[in-house]
């Protein structure tokens, strides 16, 4: 029976655990509840993915109301793939949080912190699972609102977390509202909110001005959440000042979920054949993606705070996503999805490693990394592997991403873009080089009694690092999965009930 309802349960179990955490008297109980929920979601997402691959689209009707009238959770290979990403990073971060969170959050706040974590988590899962555009907005807001709070929770150690959260709130809300405006136009045009149904109904309307306006609003709205290059302003501060676990969770998942929403809108709801969309892809996403890769990487070079450096690197990476999308072929889409998964793994592991450093040294400036190569060998070697992966050294997942992105660019015949992709990843060499050099080749400050981070933090960190290596050496799994997901995205009408077909 659980199997049958898994599509909803794995979103709603964390949602139920959120209020339960409020009742927990001791923080550790809240932690247990939260961790159990994430682990359940992780197992569930694997089962769902297998189900979606084997049996096709899973459609779950909330309250028994059939779509397009009722809300539908609609899982195909694409979103169950994203579910795996989200729940994997979520589970790892929760396990990691057992020692890290008490260090950064007051114990009286901890149950509420876990509540927010659960809300954020289930919001992300909901965005990914739902097949209803308005429901997507609601889950997007659940996840965004809770992440504003989570970012602000970093105020315990640095008051700048508050302003960071405030900016995030302003821009995030504007983004969400843009999304709703766009949705309004689409609703006026089609009279439906079910995404698959919208796709069927707008098929012949490519000349409609309303459609164009709605499309533009939706793309800008999601772009704000995704931190597409000129809309990224909230991201560096939010990532820098949030608690370590939150940063790792957000870096690994929030932009991925927004990217998923973008892909869903681009490929399922609006079909990529629409001429205006091709226009946007080529003349907007391509230059923006390239600019993001270079500008953000160059800014990252000059950061003295490692978390901020990684945040800028995330913006650069979202440029890669855009590039992959702008290729508008199955290769590019596969590359984007592969990179989405790989980036989630490596960026989370990097942020977790930085979290270990913060745990021991209380700071994450490049200077505080001096000499850590000897003092925290496990943490720093994980950091090095993550960095190498970002650079794209073979046998790491980053290499696999680069490979497929370049391949897709070559398939399109876009030479300069292929070179720009590798050149951009090269910039990562320089900004990671600085940190790694400080860690290994500079003496640690005198009388520093830094020791290795506790095992409970190293274990999840290394779980990610090892998967970073393992999936880099054998990418069969990720790539075939991503390809299946890409195909699912490009086949919007698959598995629709007869009354909703084109």
């Amino acid at each position, binding site marked *: 029976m659980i199997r049958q309802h898994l599509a909803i349960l794995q979103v709603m179990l964390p949602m139920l655990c959120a209020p339960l955490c409020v009742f927990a008297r001791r923080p550790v109980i809240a932690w247990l509840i939260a961790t159990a929920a994430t682990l359940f979601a992780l197992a569930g997402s694997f089962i769902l993915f297998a189900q979606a691959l084997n049996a096709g689209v899973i459609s779950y009707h909330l309250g028994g109301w059939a779509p397009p009238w009722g809300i539908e959770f609609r899982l195909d290979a694409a979103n169950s793939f994203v579910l795996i990403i989200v729940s994997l990073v979520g589970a790892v971060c929760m396990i990691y949080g057992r020692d890290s969170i008490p260090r950064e959050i007051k114990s009286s706040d901890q149950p509420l912190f876990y509540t927010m974590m659960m809300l954020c988590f289930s919001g992300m899962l909901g965005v990914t699972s739902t097949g209803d555009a308005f429901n997507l907005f609601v889950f997007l807001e659940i996840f965004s*609102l809770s992440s504003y709070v989570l970012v602000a929770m970093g105020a315990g150690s640095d008051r700048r977390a508050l302003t960071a959260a*405030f900016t995030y709130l302003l821009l995030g*809300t504007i983004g969400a509202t843009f999304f709703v405006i766009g949705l309004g136009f689409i609703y006026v045009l089609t009279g439906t909110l079910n995404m698959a149904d919208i796709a069927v109904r707008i098929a012949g309307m490519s000349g409609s001005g309303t459609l164009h306006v709605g499309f533009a609003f939706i793309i800008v709205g999601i772009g704000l959440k995704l931190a597409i290059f000129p809309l990224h302003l909230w991201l560096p501060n939010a990532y820098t000042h949030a608690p370590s676990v939150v940063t790792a969770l957000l870096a690994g998942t929030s932009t991925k979920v927004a990217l998923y929403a973008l892909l869903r809108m681009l490929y399922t709801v609006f079909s990529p054949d629409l001429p205006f969309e091709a226009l946007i892809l080529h003349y907007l996403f391509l230059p923006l993606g390239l600019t993001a890769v270079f500008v953000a990487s160059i800014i990252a070079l000059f950061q003295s705070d490692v978390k901020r450096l990684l945040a800028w690197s995330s913006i650069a990476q979202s440029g890669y996503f855009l590039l992959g999308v702008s290729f508008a072929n199955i290769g590019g889409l596969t590359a984007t999805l592969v990179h989405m998964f790989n980036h989630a793994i490596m960026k989370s592991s990097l942020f977790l490693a930085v979290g270990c450093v913060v745990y021991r040294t209380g700071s994450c400036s490049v200077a505080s990394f001096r000499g850590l190569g000897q003092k925290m060998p496990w943490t720093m070697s994980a950091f090095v592997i993550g960095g190498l992966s970002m650079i794209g050294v073979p046998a790491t997942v980053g290499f696999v991403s680069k490979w497929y992105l370049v391949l897709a660019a070559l398939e399109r015949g876009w030479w300069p873009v292929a070179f720009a992709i590798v050149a951009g990843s090269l910039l990562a060499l320089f900004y990671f080089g600085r940190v790694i050099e400080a860690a290994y080749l500079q003496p640690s400050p005198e009388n520093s009694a830094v020791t290795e981070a506790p095992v409970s933090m190293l274990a999840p960190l290394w779980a990610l690092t090892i998967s970073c290596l393992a999936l880099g050496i054998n990418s069969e799994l990720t790539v075939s999965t991503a390809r299946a997901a890409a195909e699912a995205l490009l086949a919007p009408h698959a598995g629709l009930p007869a009354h909703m077909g084109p």
Partner: protein
Amino acid sequence: MVNAFTSSIGHFNYWASVLLMTSGIYIVLSRGNLIKKIIGLNLFQVSVFMLFISMGKVTGGTAPILTGRHEIFSNPLPHVLILTAIVVGVATTAIGLALVVRIKYAYGTIEEDEILALDLAREQMDARAQ
């Protein structure tokens, strides 16, 4: 010409929304006071709510309560959606205000430029300490 005029007047609800929307965005971007920013944000959101609700109105329609006396109902779905969106908006405002209160405590001001100046001073202090 006349046609264009009537069609724009006919969509006056859109014009009203657009006016509110742009005012809201303008306030968010131009005001340095955080509370005013929140007010602008609210204005912006409310304009969207109004847009939705006015779209759901059917001329001559009434509330969709099944009494058997009326034939034409306004479309209730936008109202339902906006009810949800309003809740989201309230939550956003609450969190925003809570943040402003905390900022006031932490910085002693809610003017953006003063906060930035304080942050900058602190960063310079940190840089010198290293």
